[in-house]
């Protein structure tokens, strides 16, 4: 059985949602980021990058990086219809993934959530947090334009929506940002999906009212 290394409500939840959409059986193992377990010798043996998500396949090989694991799950579970097969949609999906991972998450949320990982000086934290929020909000504005009046980012439901869900959950439930209206509606649509509800439950999280 494949195994997902995760920590609740972090970017690994994108992979969790996709796994739940595919209906695959899988095991999971929590890597306590609060206790720095990602740096433990046992976990470094699994993933020397010291990050979650990490996805261990049945043959013992590991895939890292959210977009790579997502692509693997979508391509090997074609019946789940999680990625259109034309290359234009595939490319647009990657564009969304990279923007969420590289900019909104790494540049924005990382600053807003953990200013201490950029500076140990408390006096610097408010400005770091503010800049992080700025980057997240600008990013959500750009994705709001991508979404427009569609239900899902690339037309039909796809792995890109699971990627956005991670940011939405964090922005809404962890830091209480006000999101653009169509993104908020997308978040509610996500919360209505049984796979998303199962994903939250398996991470011990309460499904927010929607």
């Amino acid at each position, binding site marked *: 059985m494949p195994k997902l290394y995760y920590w609740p409500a972090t970017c690994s939840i994108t992979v969790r949602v996709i796994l739940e959409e595919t209906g695959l059986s899988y095991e999971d193992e929590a890597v306590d980021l609060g206790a720095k377990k990602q740096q433990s010798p046992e976990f470094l043996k699994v993933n020397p990058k010291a990050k979650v998500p990490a996805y261990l396949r049945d043959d013992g090989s590991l895939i890292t*990086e959210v*977009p*790579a694991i997502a*692509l693997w799950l979508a391509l*090997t579970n074609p019946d789940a219809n999680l990625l259109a097969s034309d290359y234009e949609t595939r*490319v647009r999906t990657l564009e969304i993934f990279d*923007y969420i991972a590289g900019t909104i998450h790494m540049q924005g949320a990382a600053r807003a959530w953990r200013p201490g990982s*950029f500076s140990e*000086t408390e006096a*610097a934290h408010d400005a770091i947090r503010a800049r992080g929020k700025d980057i997240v909000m600008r990013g959500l504005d750009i994705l709001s334009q991508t979404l427009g009046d569609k239900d899902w980012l690339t037309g039909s439901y796809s792995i890109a929506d699971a990627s956005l869900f991670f940011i939405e959950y964090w922005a809404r439930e962890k830091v209480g940002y006000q999101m653009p209206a169509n993104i908020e509606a997308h978040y509610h649509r996500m919360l209505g999906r049984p796979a998303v509800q199962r994903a939250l439950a398996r991470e011990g999280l309460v499904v927010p009212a929607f």
Partner: protein
Amino acid sequence: MPTLCHAAGTCSMGIHVILEEIGKPYEIRKMDFANQAQYKPDFMAINPKSKVPTLIRDDGSVLTEWPAIAMFLALSNPDKKLVPTDIEGMVRAQEAMAYCTATLHMQGWTRIWRTVTYTEIESEHPKIKARGKEIIDKGIAIFDKQLTGKDWLLGDFSIADCALYFLEVWFVERGNLALPANIAAHYERMKQRPSVQASRKYDGFA
């Protein structure tokens, strides 16, 4: 003809190399970062993210984000074999590109080069840069291991090598940093490719 919005010495170098590998006509729109050209209204109308690489395609549509542009160019020029066609190869290409862009670039190098965007308190800057250095060192060591006994990251030459390439240029030409052995050999191999030579000449790294 597609147009690549490019600034010399930035990550868009890797896309320039891919366009050269393909060998079809393209144009370059040179972005003057010293004059903040990426924040001028004419460019923001094209790409509100204010980033390069930005690719304007033949039909006028705009594509952003390094891995997406690379994948588009590879998939639309299948005869050039710039990305594996099997699922495993495709996934490994994505994994390598994501690590280059989201971690080494966005977590590592941005701390080193754009330190002031983290805090204006200058006394904090050395520590932020040191953390950036830690991230790029760790990342490049992971790629070094992946290259053991191989010429190219995925076996055959691919877009993943072009992502690693722009980081190599940053280490060597812009950061004056040494590369681990397998990466150094990979960089030399890249420099022998005519596509890379054309990009270096264009950007003044010849």
